[in-house]
């Protein structure tokens, strides 16, 4: 447990703390240890999730409604610019407000995977100095929170889609599997930021800005076909074009333009996540020291 050496002897659990135990563990072993820790701290994850999910909304009048109000108001400016003719998104096949609402919802999911993961260590700041427990649990809890918020807003947004007479494809049932690469990419970047961000604060800010700008290089507020020139090349090489835009296409049109690119991007996301996960494993103890 916890990646320290644990020996079972005469019924009592013996734990040994030594310098750099975690660095000595192999790459794949560390991934396994963390996965095991998450499974064994299910109860803690649930308690923390309930604490943060309900507590966030307890003090506000509108409560859960904020989860929906955010995305709906978020698209207003795009819809307005489209309506006035300033924004020419190309042929999106479905009513533009529905298109941009659906796209930004998935984009929001990706960003929320990133942001929630980036807060992993901060989420435990209240007791990380007092109690030893597997901090991977914090990541799991943060991801759960991102998913729960998404689920609530997505159900409402599906209803909005029906108003625009957009019937989602039956392939929507594949959604849980399809968003996994998005999760790995967001959480991979986030976990890296969470670890490094404690000691190098600026990195978090730079990353926030960079990822925030990426929405313009991903076909979310315009159709993929509308991009031209060198801009089109960036869009083509942007993994989010496939991981976020592709998923949106499956829900909206029931098809994915480039499943092979989606596969490569998913593989990339997974590798990035594994590396981040390892970084977290070997360095979180050092990082926590700096959180005092």
């Amino acid at each position: 447990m916890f990646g320290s050496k644990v020996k079972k002897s005469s019924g009592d659990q013996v734990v040994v703390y030594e310098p750099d135990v975690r660095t000595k563990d192999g790459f794949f072993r560390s991934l396994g240890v963390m996965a095991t820790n998450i499974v064994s701290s299910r109860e803690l994850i649930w308690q923390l999730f309930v604490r943060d999910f309900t507590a966030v909304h307890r003090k506000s009048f509108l409560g859960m409604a904020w989860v929906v109000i955010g995305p709906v108001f978020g698209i207003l400016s795009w819809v307005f610019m489209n309506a006035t003719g300033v924004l020419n998104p190309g042929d999106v096949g479905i009513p533009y407000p529905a298109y941009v609402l659906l796209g930004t919802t998935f984009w929001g999911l990706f960003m929320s995977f990133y942001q929630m993961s980036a807060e992993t260590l901060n989420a435990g700041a209240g007791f990380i100095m007092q109690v030893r427990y597997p901090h991977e649990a914090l990541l799991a809890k943060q991801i759960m929170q991102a998913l729960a918020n998404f689920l609530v807003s997505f159900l409402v947004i599906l209803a909005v889609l029906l108003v625009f007479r957009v019937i989602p494809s039956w392939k929507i049932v594949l959604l849980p599997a399809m968003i996994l690469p998005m999760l790995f990419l967001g959480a991979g970047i986030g976990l890296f930021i969470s670890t490094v961000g404690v000691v190098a604060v600026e990195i978090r800010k730079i990353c926030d800005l960079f990822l925030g700008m990426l929405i313009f290089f991903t076909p979310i507020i315009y159709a993929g076909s509308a991009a031209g020139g060198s801009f089109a090349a960036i869009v083509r090489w942007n993994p989010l074009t496939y991981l976020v835009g592709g998923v949106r296409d499956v829900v909206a049109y029931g098809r994915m333009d480039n499943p092979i690119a989606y596969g490569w991007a998913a593989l990339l996301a997974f590798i990035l996540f594994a590396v981040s996960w390892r970084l977290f494993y070997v360095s979180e103890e050092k990082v926590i020291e700096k959180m005092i």
Partner: protein
Amino acid sequence: MDSDVVIKVEGLSKKFCRSLKRSLFYGSLDIARNMLGIPYDKNRLRLAEFMALDNVSFELRKGEALGIVGQNGSGKTTLLRLINGIFPPDNGKITVRGRIGALIAVGAGFHPNMTGRQNIYLNGTILGMSRKEIDEKIGEIIAFADIGQFIDSPVSTYSSGMTVRLGFAIAIHSSPDILLIDEILAVGDMNFQNKCMSKIADVMAHGASIIFISHQMLNIQKICTKGLLMEHGKVVKYGDVSQIIDEYYKQNSSGSILKEEEKKKEIVGSTGITCKSFKIFDSKGKETRGFGIGDDIVAEWSFNITEPLEDVVVHFSMADGPYTYNGYVSSYDGLKIKRLDDKTIIRLIIRNVRLAPGNYSVSIGLWDKNFIGSYFWDYESTGIITINANKRLQGRFEFEHQWEIGVAE
């Protein structure tokens, strides 16, 4: 490891950094090295770094209670955090057998918007209890915390004492094999402190081992069998608790005992009045700091005063933390001191002193006639007196007494 030993600390060292910026920089460097597997010399102190723990070794056996004492910043809490596995050691090794319950800061992870009852589940889970365990113990926990109706109110409405009550109640009921306690009892009221102490004794009676940090020697004495005195991250002394406490007092007042002359110069009140001499004698006129129960204590002192003072009050007191305070004020005893100058010698004879065995720090003061404004007040450099006895007693005083056991008619 000997199966009786529950904690074994061997050659433990830990570095910290005084400068925040450097600390972050070193942190990034170390993480990069860790990630890439580049070895580096951990013993080398870089600029602004210091040893928070330096080659600390000790053992804790089953059922033992170890008191860690030392001045602020001597590394006590850091040591507890390392044993609890929150920070990794830089050097050395810690072996822990059994479930650790840490009371480093009680109520860690409480959410202000959730009720006390909800927080019991949350905090209990953080401390490693299962839902079933909490279900079983919640009644006991609520009873122990004893905060009445507040248990169903949000924790943000609690007083700090109530938060500690609830936090302690949860932690002590998490049935730890080893309990780490860091000066938390200082918060609750007297009643609750006593309740905690007896609960701790109860947990010990059931075979748990304890590491206890406190500045209250009385509490250390009550609970602990062994002691560890720390200074600047190093272990100064490790052994029987009474030796350690004596050593701690010596450390705190070392200046005044060893360099009486130098200290005298340092006793300077804001008015420029200083203590000229301060001595304590026994009833035979021999200068001493050690007494038995029932002895007379004679204190004699004088002040350096340039301008004679009129209508003043003097006081003398002996204190042991916040628990025992025994003081004498000249005006309370109806004594009027019309004039006090350079040549005045103040002598106080306290007869038949029946304080419990222990160390008491002495303070003297020179005040205006209302005993409000002070010309001189010192409680650090006047040193301590020790009451010794070869018998046990309960509480902080022993009155003269006798037993009579008879048969009913």
